[in-house]
C-alpha cells in the first residue's frame, strides 16, 4: 500500500483535516491577538489563556514523532483516502490559491504576536484573538478569506453566510452565532458581538478598567512561569456566579470525592485564582497551581493534609509488571471519624448504614473504627499485570490490584484475618448457591510475612474462562504493613519488597500517581477479542470495522510510554503536575498489533 506523505509544514493541517473529515473533532477556528490583549479585554473576564509563540508550538507539533506516527497509521491513511478528506484538502487548496500562500505558513505569520482566549462573565461570551506581525498582509488575507467563503456559498447556490459591517475603524463580519472582527493587526472571533465591540472600543479608546488592571489577574501574572500555553482563572468571580454551590463551598456530599479531592475543595472555596501551564515539547507537561494558605483547611481535613500540612505519601513500592501505582497521604480512619463534620445529615446516615452492613461481613468488626481506624495515615493502590494458572485463564483479563497500608498495631492482623475468613465464608455461600467454584482459604508464613489467601477450588467440569479466575483474594502482614490484594502472587511480591525495604520515591508529595503505558496497552491487547465483541455489540460495527477500531485504539495506546501526576501543598501554594511521555516512536507498522 502506498503511503500518502506530506511535507512537514503540511502535516498538522493534514491531521486536522483528517480528523475533521472523520467528524472526530468539531471544527474550531484559530485566531490570535497581541502582547497587550489584557489591556483590551473587559474587567469581567474570568478565564484568560495566552499562547506566546504559536509558531514555535506549530513547529514542535509538525516535527513531533507522534505526528509522524499518527500519519503513518493505516487507519489514518485510510481516513485520508476518504471523500470527506479529499473535499477538505480540495477546500484547503482553493483557499491557498485565494490567499496566495500555504495555510499553515499564513497561520504562523498572522499569529506571530500571540494567541489569546478569553471567557467573559458579563456577556457569557468567549473570544479568540490573535495578532499578526503585518497589518497590511492581515487585511489582505482576511478579505480574501471572506471572499472565499462567499464564493463557496455561491457555488452551492446559497446566500453569503455573513453580513459585513463596519464598527468604528474595525471591519466586522457577522455570521449566525459568530462574529469575526479585524482591527489593525488584531483579529478576533467571538460568539457575542457586544464583547467584540467592547474590545474594539478599548483598542481605539483605551480602557482604565481592563483585565490588566484587575488584582486577581496581576496576582496570576506575578506567578507566571515560562510556558507554551499559560492560563489563569478568576476563581473569586466564578465562585460568586456559582452562588454558593458545591464544590465552591469547600465541601461535597460525595464521600468518594471528599476522600480523593477533599483538600482541593478548600482552594476552590478560598483562592482568588487558579493558574494553568502547558508545555508541548518532546513530552507533554501540564500543571495547575493556586495560592494556598495553611489556615484554609478546617481541622476535619487533617485526614487529607496531615497535621500542619505535614502529610506525605508513602514511598512507592515497585513490583514487577506494575501498571499503576497511586500513593497518597490519606488517614482513612480519621476521614471516617470526621464524617460528621464533612457531610450533610443524609450522607452521614447512609455512611452509618453502610458501616453497620459492612460490620456483618467483617465478623462484627466496626468498619469505620476497627477496620479503617486500625490503619496509620498513608495508603498505596497498586495495579499489576495478572498472572494465571494455565488451566484457569479468564476470557476477560483484568489487572491484579492491591492496597497497602500500615497497621497501628500489627497484632490486630489476627482480627483482620478472622474478618477475612468470615467475608470469604459469606462469598462461598453465594458462590455455592450459583454453582460457581468456591474459595479455599490457606494461611502461610513466608519469612516474616503472614499471608491468608483464598484460591478458587476448581472441580472437574468447572466452566472455562470465568471472570472470577482473575481473583484470589489475599491479605498479608509484613512488619506493620498490611496488604489487601486481589491475587496472592501480588501480595507475596509486595511483602518481599517491603521486607527488603525496596521502596522507590522522589520528592515527598501529598499524592503521586504513576502509570506505565506499555503495560496498560498489554492489558488492552490481552482483551482484544473482548474489545472487538464489545465494539460490535455497542457500536453496531461488523467484525472487520470493529477490528479496525480496536487496532486504532492499540496504536494510540502505543503512543504513551508513561505518565505521572504529583499533587502537593506548601505554605502558600497548591500544585498539581501531570507529565505524559511518549514512546520513542518510529513509523509504525511493526507497532500496530495484528
Amino acid at each position, binding site marked *: 500500500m502506498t503511503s500518502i506523505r506530506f511535507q512537514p509544514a503540511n502535516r498538522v493541517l493534514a491531521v486536522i483535516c483528517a480528523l475533521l473529515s472523520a467528524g472526530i473533532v468539531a471544527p474550531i477556528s484559530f485566531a490570535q491577538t497581541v502582547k497587550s490583549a489584557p489591556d483590551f479585554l473587559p474587567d469581567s473576564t474570568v478565564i484568560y489563556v495566552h499562547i506566546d509563540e504559536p509558531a514555535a508550538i506549530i513547529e514542535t507539533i509538525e516535527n513531533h514523532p507522534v505526528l509522524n506516527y499518527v500519519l503513518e497509521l493505516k487507519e489514518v491513511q485510510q481516513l485520508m483516502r476518504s471523500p470527506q478528506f479529499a473535499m477538505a484538502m480540495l477546500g484547503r487548496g482553493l483557499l491557498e490559491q485565494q490567499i496566495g500562500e500555504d495555510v499553515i505558513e499564513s497561520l504562523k505569520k498572522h499569529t506571530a504576536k500571540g494567541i489569546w482566549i478569553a471567557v467573559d462573565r458579563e456577556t457569557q461570551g468567549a473570544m479568540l484573538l490573535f495578532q499578526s506581525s503585518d497589518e497590511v498582509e492581515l487585511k489582505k488575507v482576511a478579505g480574501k478569506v471572506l471572499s472565499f467563503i462567499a464564493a463557496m456559498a455561491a457555488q452551492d447556490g446559497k446566500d453569503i453566510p455573513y453580513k459585513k459591517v463596519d464598527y468604528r475603524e474595525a471591519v466586522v463580519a457577522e455570521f449566525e452565532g459568530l462574529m469575526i472582527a479585524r482591527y489593525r493587526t488584531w483579529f478576533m472571533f467571538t460568539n457575542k458581538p457586544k464583547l467584540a465591540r467592547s474590545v474594539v472600543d478599548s483598542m481605539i479608546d483605551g480602557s482604565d478598567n481592563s483585565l490588566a488592571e484587575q488584582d486577581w489577574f496581576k496576582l496570576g501574572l506575578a506567578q507566571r512561569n515560562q510556558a507554551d500555553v499559560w492560563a489563569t482563572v478568576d476563581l473569586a468571580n466564578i465562585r460568586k456566579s456559582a452562588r454558593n454551590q458545591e464544590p465552591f463551598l469547600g465541601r461535597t456530599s460525595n464521600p468518594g470525592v471528599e476522600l480523593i479531592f477533599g483538600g482541593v475543595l478548600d482552594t476552590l472555596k478560598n483562592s482568588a485564582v487558579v493558574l494553568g501551564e502547558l508545555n508541548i515539547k518532546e513530552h507533554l507537561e501540564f500543571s495547575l497551581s493556586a495560592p494556598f494558605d495553611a489556615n484554609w483547611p478546617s481541622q476535619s481535613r487533617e485526614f487529607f493534609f496531615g497535621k500542619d500540612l505535614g502529610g506525605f505519601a508513602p514511598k512507592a513500592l515497585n513490583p514487577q509488571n506494575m501498571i499503576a501505582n497511586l500513593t497518597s497521604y490519606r488517614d482513612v480512619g480519621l476521614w471516617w471519624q470526621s464524617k460528621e463534620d464533612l457531610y450533610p445529615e443524609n450522607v452521614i446516615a447512609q455512611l452509618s448504614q453502610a458501616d453497620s452492613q459492612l460490620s456483618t461481613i467483617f465478623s462484627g468488626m466496626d468498619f469505620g473504627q476497627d477496620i479503617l481506624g486500625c490503619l496509620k495515615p498513608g495508603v498505596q493502590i497498586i495495579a499489576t499485570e495478572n498472572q494465571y494458572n494455565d488451566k484457569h485463564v479468564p476470557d476477560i483479563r483484568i489487572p491484579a490490584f492491591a492496597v497497602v497500608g500500615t497497621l497501628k498495631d500489627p497484632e490486630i492482623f489476627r482480627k483482620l484475618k478472622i474478618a477475612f475468613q468470615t467475608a470469604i465464608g459469606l462469598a462461598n455461600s453465594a458462590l455455592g448457591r450459583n*454453582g460457581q467454584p468456591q474459595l479455599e482459604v490457606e494461611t502461610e508464613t513466608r519469612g516474616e510475612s503472614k499471608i491468608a489467601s483464598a484460591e478458587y477450588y476448581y472441580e472437574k467440569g468447572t466452566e472455562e474462562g*470465568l471472570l472470577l479466575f482473575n481473583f484470589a483474594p489475599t491479605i498479608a502482614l509484613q512488619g506493620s504493613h498490611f496488604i489487601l490484594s486481589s491475587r496472592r502472587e501480588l501480595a507475596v511480591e509486595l511483602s518481599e519488597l517491603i521486607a527488603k525495604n525496596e521502596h522507590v520515591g522522589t520528592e515527598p508529595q501529598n499524592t503521586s500517581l504513576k502509570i506505565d503505558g506499555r503495560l496498560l496497552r498489554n492489558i488492552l491487547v490481552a482483551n482484544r477479542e473482548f474489545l472487538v465483541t464489545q465494539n*460490535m*455489540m455497542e457500536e*453496531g*460495527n*461488523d467484525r472487520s470495522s470493529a477490528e479496525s477500531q480496536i487496532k486504532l485504539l492499540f496504536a494510540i495506546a502505543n503512543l504513551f510510554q508513561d505518565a505521572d501526576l504529583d499533587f502537593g501543598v506548601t505554605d502558600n501554594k497548591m500544585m498539581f503536575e501531570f507529565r505524559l511521555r511518549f514512546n520513542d516512536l518510529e513509523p509504525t507498522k511493526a507497532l500496530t498489533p495484528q
Partner: protein
Amino acid sequence: MNESSLSELDPVQSWEPFVPTPERPWTNQLAAHLFRRAAFGGTINQIIAASKQGPDRTIDLIFGQTDDTAIESEMATAGRLVTGGADSRQLAAWWLLRMIRTECPFLEKMTLFWHGHFATGADKVMDARAMLHQNQLLRKHALGRFQPFVKAISRDVAMLIYLDSEENRKTRPNENYARELMELFCLGPGNYGERDIKQVARCFTGWGVQHGQFDFNEHQHDKLPKSFLGASGNFGGDEAIEIVLQQPAASRFIAKKMIRFFVVDDVEITEDFAAPIANQLVETGFNIREAVKTILRSNVFFSKVAIARKIKSPIELAVGFLRFFDASTNVTRLCQSLAAIGQLPLYPPNVKGWKGGRSWINASTILARANLITDLLANDKTKFKAGSLADWAQSFSELDMNNLDWADEFLLATPLPDATRLTLEEISNKSNRDPANVLGWLATLPEFQLN
C-alpha cells in the same frame, strides 16, 4: 385457496405443497412473506432472487442454510466472553447480534421458537453460562427429533434451576417440571391428570444440578413402581418422557404450536386442521425439520389465512427491520427497547413464554414500537452496510423510491390503503424524500406491525 378461516378449509389440501398458478403466481410479496415467517425477513435482493427461483427452490435453500465457520466461531467466542461474568442481559444482546448477523436466520427463528416453548428466565436462573448452554442446546436440537430434544432439555442446568428440579427428592418430589412437561412442553392441558403429575414427578426424583452440571443422585431417586398415562413400571425420567410423547395428544399439541407460530395465531387451530402435521410428526418419529418444511411450503401458508395474519413480535419487528436494510446497531441498547415493549430474549414473563398474537399490541406498546424504529433510524450506532439509509435507497436503481411501491412489495405484509399511502407520499415530498422520515411514519401504521 381463498378462504380466510380455518373451518372452511380442507386440511389435506391445506397442507399440500403450494404450486404457483397463473391465478396465484409466485410473487415478490409471497417470497417476502416466506422470509418474514421462516426467518426475520429478507433483503430486497434476497426476495427478488427468491421470486426468480420459485417456492420449492427457495425453501430448500432456506433449509440448507448454515453459518460459515468464521461467524460460527466468532459467535461462539463472543458468547463465552459475554458470559464470563454473570450478566445474562449481555447474553441477550449477544443473541440479538447473532440474529442480526447470522447467515442462517431460519435456524435462529427456530431457536427463538423453542426458547418460547421451553421458556426459561435468566432472572431466576442467575447463571449466564447456563443460559448460554441452553441457548446452544435449543439451536442444536431446533430441527432435530423432538424426543431427544425433550430428554436433553430435561437435563439442562438452566431448566433444572428454573423449574426447581434441584429440590426434586424422593421424599418430596417436586411437581413443577412434571406439570410443565405435560402441560406446556408435550401434551397441553386436559390430556393428563393430577395423579399423572405426581407419578411423573417421581420419575424425575434425583435429577438435579451439582457444581453447575446435571447430576443424577441415585440415592434421591424413587425406585418404586410408577403408574401414569396408562403405563406402569419402575420408570426413570427418560422413560417418562417416552411415555408422555407416545400419547396421541403429543403430536397434535406440537403440530398446533408450530402452526400458531408459523401460520396464524389469532384463530383456534382445530384437531382436524392440525391432523396432517400431527400425523407426519408421528410417522417421522417427531422429525421437526420435516414438519416445519411441510408447513412452510403448504397451500395454507401462502394463503390469505396466513398472510398478514400475525403480529410481529418485538424481536421480529427489530431484527426484521435491521436485516431488511442490511444494518446493525447497538444491541445492548436494543435490548432495553425490546424489554420496554415486552420481549427481551432470555427473559420470558413466565414458564408459559410470551403469549404473542394480539398481546404484543396495546396503547403503550404501539407507540413504543414506533419509537423503537425511530430510535434505530436516529441512532448513530445503526450502521447500514450500504452507508447511510439514503445510500441504501439509492443502491436500488431499478426501484422507484419516490413512491411506496417498494414498501408494499418487499417490506409490508399487506399493502397500504390508498389514502394512507397518499398521505405518506406527501410527507415524503415535504421532507425532501428523506427515507428515514418516511420509515418513521411507516412504523406508526398498523400495517407495519403485521407479519
